[in-house]
């Protein structure tokens, strides 16, 4: 069998995976002589489970996957190349299309990197509003994940509930920034504008609704026995494998790694001003990943609530020259985005535009584990695992 080649030299994580495969294979392979030639199944590029155009080439034996490999690139837009012909202010309008569900969060690390190179620091009020909008985009992003999770597993109602309540968050983002999906609100040295009047009170109301949404999803989906049986023990990622593949965000924390860049990294953002819990789960399976995300959404609403109470007064824009030229240098900034660690390695040559931008997107690393993870699972588990890894196609292909 291809999946069982070289079990002697397998690493620790591989052994865990092999034992998991063996336990699953035991049911399916009572009679070895009944084994037939496999079938290659192309899942995607147009497939409901790939939210976008990801293609997964799977070699099947019955319903069991012998090997599977994602094939990306159907949506590669070449952002790293495009940034090289754009000026720094123009880049933000581009990069908030990377992870289009949490777009504001995409702008922040790039702007922080540019600010770091320029030696500019945004005023505190701007940092607080940035953090609030960052967490709002996290809520908007992950709440859609929670709904979409239901669709992937066959429940149709959660996605509508998710869309209903995500709408409130999008309305908030829109009334503050002007853009529902692509705010382009972050500027080097601060924010484009201040919040409109009444926004803070409105946000507090919405945060209550979102907590209620989390409760509903928990009752509708996470408590459901079928959901649990579909996700528990499926797609187990041990800690050391997660580290090797550079998984980040909830995927890493679900493997028992207590690591959150919001807490564990010096950042000018306002996260160190609030009190929040970093949720982890020891299991590393699909359920753990989904559960961690659910808890993080709740936690994010609490972070927003705390931040709303303490927005300092003052300007939202530091003094920056009208024509922005970034001094020569290199900087790396990453933040804990909804999908995981998103970072930009910015190389500047003293021009108005960057010389090279390496976009380290979370989904690329998160999805790169799939060939390892999908061996030996069943076809429905492919969907479960992909859904629980949670990728946004724009974030893989960039």
């Amino acid at each position, binding site marked *: 069998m291809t999946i069982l080649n070289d079990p002697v030299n397998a690493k620790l994580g591989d052994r865990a995976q092999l034992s998991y495969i063996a336990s699953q294979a035991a049911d399916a392979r009572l009679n070895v002589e009944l084994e037939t030639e496999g079938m290659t199944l192309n899942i995607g590029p147009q497939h409901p489970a790939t939210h976008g155009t990801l293609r997964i080439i799977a070699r099947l034996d019955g319903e069991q996957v012998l090997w599977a490999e994602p094939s990306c690139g159907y949506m590669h837009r070449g952002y790293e190349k495009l940034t*090289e012909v754009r000026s720094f202010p123009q880049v933000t309008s581009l990069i908030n299309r990377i992870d289009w569900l949490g777009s504001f969060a995409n702008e922040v690390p790039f702007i922080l990197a540019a600010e770091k190179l320029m*030696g500019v620091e945004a005023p505190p009020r701007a940092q607080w509003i940035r953090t609030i909008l960052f967490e709002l985009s996290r809520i908007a992003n992950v709440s859609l994940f929670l709904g979409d999770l239901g669709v992937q597993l066959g429940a149709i109602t959660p996605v509508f509930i998710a869309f209903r309540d995500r709408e409130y968050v999008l309305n908030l983002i829109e009334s503050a920034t002007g853009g529902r999906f692509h705010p382009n609100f972050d500027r080097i040295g601060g924010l484009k504008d201040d919040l409109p009047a009444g926004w803070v009170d409105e946000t507090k109301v919405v945060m209550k609704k979102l907590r209620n949404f989390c409760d509903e999803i928990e009752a509708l989906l996470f408590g459901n026995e079928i959901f649990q049986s579909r996700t528990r023990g499926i797609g187990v990622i041990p800690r050391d494998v997660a580290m090797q593949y550079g998984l980040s965000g909830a995927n890493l924390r679900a493997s028992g790694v207590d690591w959150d860049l919001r807490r564990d990294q010096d950042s000018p953002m306002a996260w160190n001003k609030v009190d929040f819990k970093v949720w982890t789960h020891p299991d590393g399976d699909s359920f753990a990943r989904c559960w961690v995300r659910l808890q993080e959404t709740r936690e994010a609403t609490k972070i927003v609530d705390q931040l709303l109470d303490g927005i300092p007064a003052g300007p939202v824009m530091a003094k920056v020259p009208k024509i922005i030229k970034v001094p020569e240098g290199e900087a790396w900034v990453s933040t804990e985005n909804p999908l995981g660690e998103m970072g930009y390695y910015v190389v500047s040559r003293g021009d108005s535009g960057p010389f090279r931008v390496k976009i380290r997107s979370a989904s690329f690393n998160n999805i790169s584990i799939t060939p390892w993870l999908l061996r030996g699972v069943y076809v429905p588990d492919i969907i479960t695992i992909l859904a629980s890894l949670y990728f946004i196609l724009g974030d893989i292909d960039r």
Partner: protein
Amino acid sequence: MVNLLSSPAETAPVVDTTRDQIVADIRATLGASVVDSLVKPGDDVWIRVTTESWNSSMQKLQAMGFDYFCFLSAIDWLPSPFGRGEDDPTEPAPERDSTIRPGYTGGETRMQMLVRLVNSRTHVGVNVKADVPNDGYTIDSISNVFAGANWHEREAHEMFGIGFVGHPDLRNMYLPADFEGFPMRKDFPLLARMVKPWPGIVDVEPLPGGDAEPEEVS
């Protein structure tokens, strides 16, 4: 937060003992493999290792505790011969400086590898660079050290044309299999900026009979 980066004079007094210690440790472990290193206090660490020791340095760094693989990429230090694609197609192409100037921690070659590893306990990362020889652009693969580097190396291979010795499966990741050229190299033109002239070239048409001849504007 202290403003760290605006000028060398300001950064000088700031000392970052943690990162200095890290560099000292790395230099002790990797020995002669480290070509150069740079610490920006409170910010980040850069080290450059020799091309030959690329793979072994990664193994040693992983054993040192830098076990989280963040990303792998490459940098093409050649300045773009096309600028930002804002030239007037009717004018002769402007002369551009094409000297290769490396970034932090220096370098002798056009292409450089860039890997970021993070210590999962202290959450401090290092940026590791290595030169990619100009003849053939090949370097050792590190996918046997960090399994996650597999896809990143495939991406770097198709985008920069860097060969990775020992990579199990160096197929194209994004581009069609028969794509020619390496899009992320600076001398690969960005077609979107070539197919039509920049609208910003156009200027206000001067008065007839002014100093300048009214010129035809496309």
